[in-house]
């Protein structure tokens, strides 16, 4: 039983990272009906930029760990947002009025391009994060060991997701994003500049993905140029589980996938972990392609 609860905590931690990445897929899909295949690479980029800045900022301990991580997070979010914006301008905007397939091919191309840029800049070998950054603290809670780093990753992801949720549901711009996702034409009739909304989701999504990359770096301590492939696929699966285009769905889907994976790892076999995740993807696509959440209220004629 104790083992089980520990697995749950572990699953929620991994799941919260999936959820954070999944939000980028789902927001872009919601507004553009396009899977941004380069999103996984923006996640990797976030990890590497985090690696660079965290190394620099904590060096010589000018900054305490909290300040170093905080500053790094801002820099990571800012630079991946910029990269996302640039990606939209170069790879997607020129194709907005062309065939859907053209945009998909462009997305795949952007993904390969970014992955190779990251490899050329930082090399193909694994890079290690500064491991002594967060003190190795382990608490015993109800007989469970919960490490500081695990709690940090989970809570940070949850706080970011809650902020996004509030932004989407409580602000004027959030309202515009939702409107553009439901009916672009109607949103334009309301005076919403849909081009700006698209630009906005291509800033928010990559920023969240980049932050997820930083969290993975801090959590596992090592990063690699093609880590975005598997994380991207998993997060995409999470987005589909929650219903692609659905923001709370992506959060829920991420957490569920994280749980499924760690439980599979613990009670079935580590070798089957990834396979089971994709069995979940295929099952959802076959049996409930709109995701596990109740379908949106249909418009009446």
């Amino acid at each position: 039983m104790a083992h089980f609860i520990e697995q749950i905590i572990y699953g929620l931690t991994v799941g919260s990272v999936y959820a954070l990445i999944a939000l980028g897929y789902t927001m872009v899909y919601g507004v553009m009906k396009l899977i941004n295949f380069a999103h996984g690479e923006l996640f990797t980029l976030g990890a590497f930029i985090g690696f660079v800045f965290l190394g620099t900022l904590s060096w010589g301990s000018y900054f305490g760990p909290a300040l170093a991580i905080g500053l790094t997070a801002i820099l990571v979010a800012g630079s991946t947002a910029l990269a996302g914006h640039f990606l939209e301008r170069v790879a997607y905007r020129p194709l907005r009025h062309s065939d859907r397939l053209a945009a998909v091919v462009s997305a795949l191309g952007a993904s390969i391009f970014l992955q190779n840029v990251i490899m050329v800049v930082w090399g193909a070998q694994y890079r290690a994060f500064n491991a002594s950054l967060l003190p190795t603290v382990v608490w015993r809670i109800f007989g469970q060991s919960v490490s500081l780093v695990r709690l940090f990753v989970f809570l940070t992801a949850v706080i970011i997701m809650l902020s996004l949720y509030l932004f989407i549901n409580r602000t004027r711009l959030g309202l515009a994003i939702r409107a553009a996702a439901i009916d672009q034409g109607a949103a334009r009739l309301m005076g919403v500049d849909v081009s700006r909304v698209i630009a906005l989701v291509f800033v928010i999504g990559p920023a969240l993905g980049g932050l997820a990359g930083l969290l993975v770096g801090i959590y596992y301590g090592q990063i690699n140029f093609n880590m975005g492939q598997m994380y991207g696929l998993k997060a995409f699966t999470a987005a589909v589980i929650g219903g692609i285009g659905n923001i709370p769905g992506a959060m829920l889907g991420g957490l569920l996938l994280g749980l499924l994976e760690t439980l599979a790892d613990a009670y079935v076999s580590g070798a089957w972990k990834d396979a089971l995740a994709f069995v979940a993807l295929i099952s959802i696509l076959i049996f409930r392609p709109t995701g596990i959440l109740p379908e949106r209220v249909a418009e009446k004629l």
Partner: protein
Amino acid sequence: MAETEKLLELKNLVVSYGGVEALHGLSLAVAPGELVTILGANGAGKSTTLMAISGLVRPAQGEIYFQGQRIDVLPSHEVVRLGITQAPEGRRVFGPMTVEENLRLGGFTRHGQDLGPDLERVYDLFPRLLERQGQMAGTLSGGEQQMLAIGRALMARPKLLLLDEPSLGLAPLLVKSIFETIKGINESGVTIILVEQNARAALKLADRGYVLDVGHLVLEDQAERLLNNPQVRDAYLGTR
């Protein structure tokens, strides 16, 4: 109509969809305060005309002027900012959003302004919407959705309101009440272009009317005269 009296003017508007022309050189003008109706069968180009005015479809030829400014070159959100809003065909309310969120979106262009008085005005106009304030728009009845679409279009405080088939699919009693409300909105100073298949009701309400047939303007006259025009009676008013 003298130049200075025109709020909106369409000059030789040509619109085509994928090589097929939907409007073949339409010209029309609307004076401030007027209620003008555009009649015609399905596919006559009525909705296309409204979408071109709102900037959602680009005319291939011709020009659109609003208060003397050329607007057919502007993006749709700037057209809204200038004071033209639309309750589109099929209502197109945001189903997974609440009634109030839909209304707030209607006031999207009025950044930083208090929408409170406008919400109140819409709820005054359509008390049903106040009862449904927190409900998802997709769960409303057709009539309520139409009220929401019109209310939403009023939130931006338009000078010109475009209404596309507001009576479509509604019970006769409801149509009557919606048309009365439209008249009231017009009397409060909002210029209206009303696209309708329900020609009789629209002509009773309107000052003037235009009749389109497969993208061509075939008739243009005072509403009363159109009501009594034998050609219109046969083609659009039935033999009641």
